[in-house]
Every structure is written in C-alpha cells, then in structure tokens.
C-alpha cells in the first residue's frame, strides 16, 4: 500500500491521531525551548555538519583507523556488506557461545537488518529491553518512531497487553505501575542473558571506542551483566576524534526529546576483564547512498528523530504509514535508496515546508532531497494521471478564449454536478476536505464591475 492509503488507516481513529499530533508537537516545542538556552546552537549545528562532511569524504580512512584502534584495545571487529551477512555474523557468535537467549537494546540498524525474525527462526529468543521496544515486540509490531517506539499506542492498550503478557491488574493504566511490571520482567532477562546486543550512536576513529546513549540504562544493564557484547554499527556512524563527541552529545538529546543529555552515555573502549566485545561494521546500502551526490548528506543523520516530531505529515499519519524502518522525513530520503519501487510514495509524503531541515542538528537539507527524489521517481515511473492533467491544462492556458470559456464551464459544473462526481476517488484534493464555495463570476469579471 502507498503512504496515503496507510495514512488513511491511521486517521480512522481521529481522537488518537489528534493525540499523536499534539504529543509530537509538544516534544518539538521542548526541543525549541532547550535549543534556545544554548547561545551557540546554530554554530554547533554548523560544526556537526562540517565534521560529518569531513567524515563522508574520508570514510574509508576513518573506518580503517577505527578498526586498528578497536582491535588494539581487544575489541573484535567484523565487517558486513549487507543485512544477511550482519545477521550471519551475529548468529555465528551466538553459536560459538552456545547461547539461545539474548537481550537487545535499541538499535535501528538491527531492525533494518530484520535481525529478530532471523534469530528467532534459528532458535534464539530475542528480548528487546527498551520499554517501548518491548511493548511493540509483544504486539509483533516494528517501532513506529526511532526514539519513541510505542508513540502510536495509548496507555489503555499497553495496560491490556501487560495484563495478558505480564499478568498485571486488569484495567490498571498507571504508567508507573506498568513500567515497574516491565522492570521486574526484564530484570530476570538481564540477569540470565549471556550475550547482549546494542546499537551504536558514535564510533570514534581516533580511539577505537564507541558510545551508546540511553535514558533507561537498558543497554548497560544488558552488556555489563552478559559475558559477550555485540554492537551493530552503520559505517556512517564514525566520527574522527573524541573531542567531536562534545559537539554531538550537546546536540543529540536536546534535538531528540528536549532534554540536556541522555542520562547514560557509555564509552566502550575495551572489554571488562574476562569478557568480549564484538563490533559489526555494516554497509547495507550505505556505500551506494554515498555514491549518490544529491542524497549523500542523508548519511550525516544521527537518528535524533527531530524531523519526525516536527513534520506535519508524520505527526498526522503515524510512523507505520511509511512502511520503512526509519519513518518520517529522514526515512523518506534514506529508504528510496534501498528500494525505489517499494518506497516510491514516501518522498511525496511531505508538504516540502522545510521544517525538517530547520530542526536537523546536522543540517541535512531534507526537504530539498525529498524534492530531488520526486524528480527521480517521476522519471522512473513515466506518464502519470497528474502528467496527463498538466498536458490538458497546458491546452487551456494557451489561448485566452479557451481559458475564459473553460472557467465558466468549471464554475457551472462545480455548482451543479452531483457531489459524488466532484469528490470522486481521482480527486485527491477532495479527500477529507471541502472545496471552497464557488464564486459566481471570474476575477476578471469582478474587476470589470467593481474597478471600472
């Protein structure tokens, strides 16, 4: 299904979609207030963007430097050209460790690689430990937002789910009570797990260390209690030096949720005595995107989600309507690079208002890239209904006579034709909105009469 069809599904529950819209706007507002307290905010965005420019121009060197330093520190470094190879590497480590149950903290990359279903098919129990991710995992759903995985759900639904899965009191919707139930449930999993998987926010070439940020502390609970830590990192997550973390950590949480910083920011440089750290550097389409000049800068993304929170389309259509691991504006410029056919409606799921570009902490020109993807897609798709109507319009506008005449016909037609014909399925502009009242005369006629 295309984005508009999926969005129509989400909009059926109008109270919930209104709540979704308002809640994400509230977070966007928090981001604004927080960013305004930092006088050098715009300078920081510029710095972050320039650091990423440098990274993208020297990516191979930085990756090799990262590997050298990480290996020196006793971290096992793996390379995966695609999702399949990434998943196979994870499974081979689990087999070596004789491990059939793992805990995993938030990692959009493992979602992108569809790691969970792959491991489950191979007899491994996967427990997502971020509260929002555990909730959607219980429901068999993917996250609908990269920072707020369960933002599409109301507490009543979660209460019912937890009653079923965790035996909480029926009808108890108190978020504290529900969170504590999840805490007890997941603590058992943490204490039992031998292998923990995390994503990576930043990998530092200079030191070979990598940084993971959470508010819940679930990544750390997992890895420090397990014997083996597997970290999955997209190759674009590399930054040159440790000192650059200062720039990115100042921007990340403030952009994401409007908080100063995430409460836990862990720097992994070498394993704890007697334990192992593995890091998998994953391409999966990133080098192809690097080769697309118009869309290269999408790889600067630090996955804060600010573009989703501000987007008038995302807020009103929900994350699932994008049918893409990364939804929202940034997903709409990343996903067509992975599968143009499947994601061809996404670059059109935008008003091109540019708000995404304005809030992006690394200054990706998201709305311009959306516009560029539209051109690629239109070229690839050939003649469309819109194209035909443009040709028709061209005929009308060519001669003043045909223009005046067709104006009269349209005014008459819109007044007299049955509603079912005007609001037919081909008129997408008539969906969920009424046309303005039709005037009796053209503007030209009005001027003639009133401004003689």
């Amino acid at each position: 299904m295309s984005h508009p069809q999926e969005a129509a599904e989400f909009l059926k529950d109008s109270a919930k979609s209104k709540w979704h819209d308002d809640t994400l706007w509230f977070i966007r507002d928090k981001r604004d207030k927080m960013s305004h307290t930092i006088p050098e905010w715009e300078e920081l965005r510029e710095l972050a963007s320039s650091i990423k420019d440098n990274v993208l121009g020297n990516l191979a060197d930085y990756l090799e430097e990262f590997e050298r330093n990480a290996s020196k520190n006793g971290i096992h470094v793996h390379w995966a050209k695609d999702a399949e190879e990434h998943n196979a590497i994870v499974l081979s480590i689990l087999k070596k460790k004789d491990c059939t149950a793992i805990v995993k903290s938030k990692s959009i990359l493992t979602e992108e690689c569809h790691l969970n279903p792959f491991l489950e098919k191979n007899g491994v129990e996967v427990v997502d430990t971020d509260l929002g991710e555990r909730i959607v995992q219980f429901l068999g759903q993917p996250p609908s937002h990269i920072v707020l995985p369960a933002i599409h759900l109301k507490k009543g639904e979660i209460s019912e789910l937890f009653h079923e899965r965790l035996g909480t009191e029926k009808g108890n919707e108190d978020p504290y009570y529900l969170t504590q139930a999840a805490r007890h449930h997941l603590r058992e999993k943490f204490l039992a797990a031998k292998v923990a998987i995390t994503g990576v926010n930043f990998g530092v070439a200079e030191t070979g260390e990598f940084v993971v940020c959470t508010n819940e502390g679930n990544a750390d609970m997992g890895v420090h209690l397990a014997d083996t830590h597997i970290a999955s990192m997209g190759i674009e997550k590399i930054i040159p030096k440790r000192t650059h973390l200062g720039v990115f950590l100042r921007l990340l949480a403030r952009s994401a949720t409007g908080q100063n910083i995430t409460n836990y920011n862990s720097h992994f440089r070498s394993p704890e005595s007697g334990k192992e750290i593995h890091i998998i550097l994953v391409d999966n389409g990133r080098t192809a995107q690097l080769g697309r000049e118009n869309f290269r800068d999408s790889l600067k993304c630090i996955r804060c989600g600010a573009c989703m929170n501000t987007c008038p389309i995302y807020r009103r259509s929900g994350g699932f309507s994008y049918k893409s691991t990364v939804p929202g504006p940034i997903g709409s410029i990343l996903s067509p690079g992975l599968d143009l056919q499947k994601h061809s409606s996404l670059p059109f799921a935008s008003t091109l208002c540019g708000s995404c570009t304005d809030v992006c902490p690394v200054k990706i020109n998201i709305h311009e890239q959306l516009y560029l993807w539209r051109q690629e897609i239109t070229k690839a798709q050939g003649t469309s209904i819109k194209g035909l109507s443009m040709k028709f319009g061209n005929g009308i506008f060519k001669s003043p006579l045909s223009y005046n005449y067709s104006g009269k016909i349209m005014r008459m037609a819109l007044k007299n034709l049955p509603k079912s014909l005007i609001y037919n399925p081909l008129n997408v502009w008539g969906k969920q909105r009424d046309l303005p009242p039709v005037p009796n005369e053209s503007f030209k006629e009005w001027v003639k009469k009133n401004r003689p």
Partner: protein
Amino acid sequence: MSSKDIIIEKIRILKLDQKPLPEIPDFEGATDLIQEFCISIVSNKGEILSAEELIKKLESGIYPSIFSTDLTFEHFSNQALPVDVHSFSKLDLAILNGQFAVAENGAIWLEDSDLRLRAIPFITEHLVIVVSRDSLVATMHQAYDRIGDKHSGFGLFIAGPSKTADIEQSLVIGAHGAKSLMVVLI
C-alpha cells in the same frame, strides 16, 4: 575479497572531495557552575544532597545493603565487592566517586577505576555519586578536553536516574537501572 575489502573499495572508488575538519571554538558556558549544575541535575530528575543529609538517610536504615567506594561514607558500607556482579542484584545503594561533572547538563564522568565493576551503577536500586565542587566544568567541550587522551576501558557520563516516557509520554523514574540519583557535592 573480504567484505571489508569490498566496502573499503566501494568507498575509495568514489574519490570524494576531502573537506577539512572544523576547529571547535572555545564556548564559554555558564559562569556560576555550581548553580547551573544543580539546576541541570534537578531537571534530569536527580537530587542534590549535602553530606549531612546523606548521612541522615544512611543512618535511617532505609537502605539495608550498601556498597561504598567513597572513603567518607565507607563505614556505612556493609557489602564487599563481589567476584560476580550478579550477586549485587538486591543491592539497595551504591556510593561511587565521580571524577568531574558538567554544569550545562549535569553529566558526571566515571571510569573503570571508579566503578570497580561496570554494572554497579545500573544494578543498584539507588545510586549516590560524590563529586568535588572544584571539578565542575561548564560544557561538554571542556569535559572532553579534561578527559584528554586518557585511556580507560570504559567511561560513562551519568546525568540522572534511569527513566522512561515510553507509555504515553508520562515520565516514570526507575526503568531498569537506579531508581534515584543523589549527588553529593563536596
């Protein structure tokens, strides 16, 4: 060809323009570091306590099992460092030393040498971090300058207690890790 060679080759073949790294200017940050730090900790849902207030809490007996690496509060410690951190799964309170703290966001830096075992600040039910007033820096830039190129296998900025807002954006303190963070400035 290994996957590494394939990926590296795919990047090198593009021969992209090499843009210079920008210089990071000296951003000054707040002048009253103590005040700014306390505001940050409170906004992260942590608490600021004086040493006397902490002692009162410790004496009240609300924390049956206590592990302290801080010498000032060591006599309240009734747990030895375990071989396997799993046996701390019922630990009520850990008292650790932070190396320094950041005023703009309340983040406190701890390394392997401060943590003893990396899981301790997470597995404990409640956490106290003791940090010196003189150690405060204004911004994250100054924080990384201060860390410099020192090597620790693990380093961590803690800025507050474990928290989540995954259920309808209602903030809940105490998701998986410590249910409270108390900071004692000395």
